[in-house]
């Protein structure tokens, strides 16, 4: 009999979700679907408020990457207001953004994924978590905690709070950095570098254990989208949009942020509440599941699309990372996201080191004043999990008339579904279904480090997917609504 396996709740991801794996009569996997089960509605309830409130409100979309939302929002507000943001304010924004990458990627790697990588994908679920990791390897557990803490502490030092600071504003930021804080950051950097190096070495030494995972955990051709600097370098805060295909051809070299809707469109499926973003010029296809415009965002996409990293240690790792692509082409297996995240921690630490040695970093001119000078503002950031878009429309008095948010995790929706289907087909077809096999499918989601708090709180991409089953639990045709 056809069968559906439900995995719920999906754990060690940042949000709420369920997975359904569909098997046919012979026990072969037909499909796997990723269901996300809540929404809040920021795009609607923000309409009618004043635009300077937006950084404070939209960072509450997500407690894991509040800095990304705060800064994307502030950048959209900068455009509405007009005057140039002071140089030191830009640098301070970059500083806490690099600090956020450090904490968020450390959380994804050590707290959420390392239990699978180090303790085993099919190890005992009772201890397969960060606590189990601390108990199994207290020294590594402590280092992991301290690396995440370093990122959070920088955010707290600069802004006053590690989560939801009232700090970035249209035109700048509210507080500056003190020389004593620079000394503390400098003193703690060497340990952060060491921990990142230990993790990188561990992963590289153990890569051969994961050959099958590399082949089956989301290895497929796709487009890659993200920001790069104007001359093509790795960029997280402010750059141009680049699109690359699976063969490494550049389809968009450097598109201005405010033109993002020219390249990204969203589709709707009758069986899903979740919209499916795709690259507009290549289209959504004919609905047979093969989407020509399917793209991925996030750490792998960023490392694929950039021409260079721009810092020495990250540059060395980037060259090594590129060897993972076949025949000199982009890296296509999502399993390599773990490696990509560690490289980006290294990059962030190197950038933090540069910024705290910058002669202007303690300047006190950190905010420009202005009124309403533009009626539309777009702010695009690279959040740790991928490209994040905030677009606001206001009237002449600064009251919001429209809000459009496309968050990183929404961008990866098509790719996440494709990844878990690939894992389920590889490991579950014809097999006795065990808890460990289900965990492998969940790991496919963890690779994208999905920030479901983010994606579920923007009404525009209410991420819910519906598969309809009959009373026996069999999959009913998805056109049932007709």
């Amino acid at each position, binding site marked *: 009999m056809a069968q559906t396996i439900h995995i719920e709740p999906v754990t*060690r991801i940042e949000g709420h979700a369920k997975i359904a794996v569909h098997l046919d009569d012979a026990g072969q996997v037909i499909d796997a679907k990723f269901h996300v089960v809540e929404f*809040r509605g920021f795009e609607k309830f923000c309409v009618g408020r004043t635009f300077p409130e937006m950084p404070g*409100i939209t960072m509450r979309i*997500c407690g894991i990457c509040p800095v990304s939302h705060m800064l994307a929002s502030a950048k959209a507000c900068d455009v509405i207001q007009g005057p140039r943001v002071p140089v030191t304010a830009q640098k301070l924004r970059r500083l806490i953004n690099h600090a956020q990458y450090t904490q968020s990627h450390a959380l994804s790697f050590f707290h959420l994924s390392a239990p699978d990588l180090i303790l085993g994908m099919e190890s005992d679920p009772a201890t397969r978590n960060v606590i189990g990791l601390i108990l199994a390897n207290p020294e590594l557990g402590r280092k992991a905690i301290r690396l995440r803490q370093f990122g959070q502490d920088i955010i707290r030092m600069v802004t006053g709070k590690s989560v939801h600071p009232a700090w970035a504003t249209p035109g700048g930021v509210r507080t500056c950095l003190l020389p004593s804080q620079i000394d503390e950051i400098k003193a703690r950097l060497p340990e952060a570098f060491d921990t990142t190096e230990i993790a990188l070495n561990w992963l590289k030494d153990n890569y051969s254990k994961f050959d099958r995972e590399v082949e089956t955990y989301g290895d497929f051709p796709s487009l890659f989208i993200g920001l790069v600097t104007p001359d093509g370098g790795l960029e997280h805060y402010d750059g141009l949009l680049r699109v690359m295909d699976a063969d490494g051809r550049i389809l968009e070299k450097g598109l201005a942020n405010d033109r993002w809707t020219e390249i990204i469109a969203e*589709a709707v499926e009758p069986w899903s509440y979740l919209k499916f973003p795709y690259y507009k010029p290549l289209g959504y296809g004919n609905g047979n599941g093969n989407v020509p415009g399917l793209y991925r965002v996030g750490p792998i996409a960023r490392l694929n699309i950039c021409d260079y990293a721009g810092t020495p240690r990250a540059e060395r790792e980037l060259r090594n990372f590129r060897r993972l692509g076949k025949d000199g082409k982009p890296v296509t297996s999502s399993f390599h996201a773990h490696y990509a995240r560690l490289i980006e921690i290294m990059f962030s630490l190197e950038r933090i080191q540069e910024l705290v040695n910058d002669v202007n970093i303690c300047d006190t001119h950190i905010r420009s004043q202005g009124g309403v000078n533009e009626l539309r503002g777009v702010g695009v950031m690279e959040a740790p999990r991928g490209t994040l878009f905030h677009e606001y429309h206001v009237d002449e008095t600064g009251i919001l008339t429209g809000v459009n948010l496309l968050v990183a995790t929404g961008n990866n929706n098509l790719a996440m579904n494709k990844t878990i289907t690939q894992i389920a087909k590889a490991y579950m077809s014809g097999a006795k279904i065990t808890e460990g096999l289900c965990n492998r499918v969940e790991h496919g989601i963890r690779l994208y480090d999905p920030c479901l708090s983010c994606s579920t709180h923007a009404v525009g991409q209410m991420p819910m997917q519906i598969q309809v089953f009959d009373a026996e639990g069999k999959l009913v045709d998805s056109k*049932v609504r007709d």
Partner: protein
Amino acid sequence: MTTQNNKVRLATVWFGGCAGCHMSFLDLDERLIDVVGLVDIVYSPVADIKKFPENVDVTLIEGAVCNSDHIKEAKEIREKSKVVISFGDCAVTGNVPSMRNPLNVDTIISEVYSEGPGPAPPDQGILDIMPVILPQVVPIHQVIPVDIYLPGCPPDPERIWAAINLLLKGEPVVLPVEMRNFG
């Protein structure tokens, strides 16, 4: 309130919120290592136990009640937990998720799809897997009795640490005034 190994059984749960309170819990940093010496985390988004266990001593609930799953889970948590803590402003007041309360849910949903690329998907609630979105977001204590309130957006780690210490000593959780504000 302990298990055989003399540890307090702690659960942490995540309703309609942003995960920021859980991040603040992780901001206990190295004190987490002390915590795992005294406490068994028996259920949490950061662990792999899928079913809420029996005989939990303390449950921290982050987030507001936003959908039908939250109501069902809250009732189960109440039955199985000795102490329930509303963890953070969304749990205590509804906070940011309740900002949608003046709007009509059905209107929002139909607007999103009429402005968007295609027709609205099937009605929610058609399946067990999809919870129904509630017309009004409410704080936890409107659904189940709550024993302790830990405000803050998020509650900072010092506040969480203070509450945990009082609980472990078996003393009433009365926080100093400066730890009782919102935001």
